[in-house]
């Protein structure tokens, strides 16, 4: 069974600074995807970024980027130029690909507060 670990329950960052959220996972599979989802106080689950495990290049979406280390099974999220609207719970998630969709396995989340 796959597991996802987020070791930082809470973090804070000053506005305009950079913050990195950690995520490690455990799997024996080779074909999988990794995601970061954001959940603001509105409760909506919003996809931040996705990474295909077979791609070595780290995914980037505007101010969000990942550091994907497949051998170390590490998938951290870097948020640059933090904004107040980035305040949210951030969930790292793993999905095993088996000729079709399988459910997401989530970490316990990191609560990020951006301070003005």
């Amino acid at each position, binding site marked *: 069974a796959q597991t996802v670990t987020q070791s930082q329950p809470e973090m804070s960052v000053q506005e305009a600074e950079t913050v990195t959220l950690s995520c490690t996972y455990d799997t024996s599979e080779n074909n999988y995807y990794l995601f970061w989802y954001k959940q603001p106080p509105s409760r909506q689950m919003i996809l931040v970024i996705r990474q295909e495990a077979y791609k070595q290049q780290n995914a980037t979406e505007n101010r969000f980027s990942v550091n994907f280390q497949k051998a170390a099974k590490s998938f951290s999220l870097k948020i640059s130029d933090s904004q107040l609207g980035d305040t949210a719970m951030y969930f790292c998630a793993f*999905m095993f690909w088996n000729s079709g969709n399988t459910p997401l396995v989530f970490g316990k989340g990191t609560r990020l507060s951006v301070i003005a």
Partner: protein
Amino acid sequence: DTAVSQTPKYLVTQMGNDKSIKCEQNLGHDTMYWYKQDSKKFLKIMFSYNNKELIINETVPNRFSPKSPDKAHLNLHINSLELGDSAVYFCASSQGPDREYSDTQYFGPGTRLTVL
């Protein structure tokens, strides 16, 4: 143009009652899911349907019964509600296999269920 919608958004009910949560997606996706988010914010898969067929049924009490009348709808019926059922329930959907970005799941706004 809501992609994945759920009704109701809030549900308050007494122990022992039976209730349903409805989910609809207008994305043309083949696969739909129900996730439960507990009071500690942990998200876990409950059920997964592909083209109206149940493909994943995690260890969930049989008081929970999903029903998929068509590919665009996946409803969750809960019998004999218990205090421990209080949680946020999320519906999600994704493309079927063999389609571009079929791995990405899109979430509904969630339904906060409170059992008194």
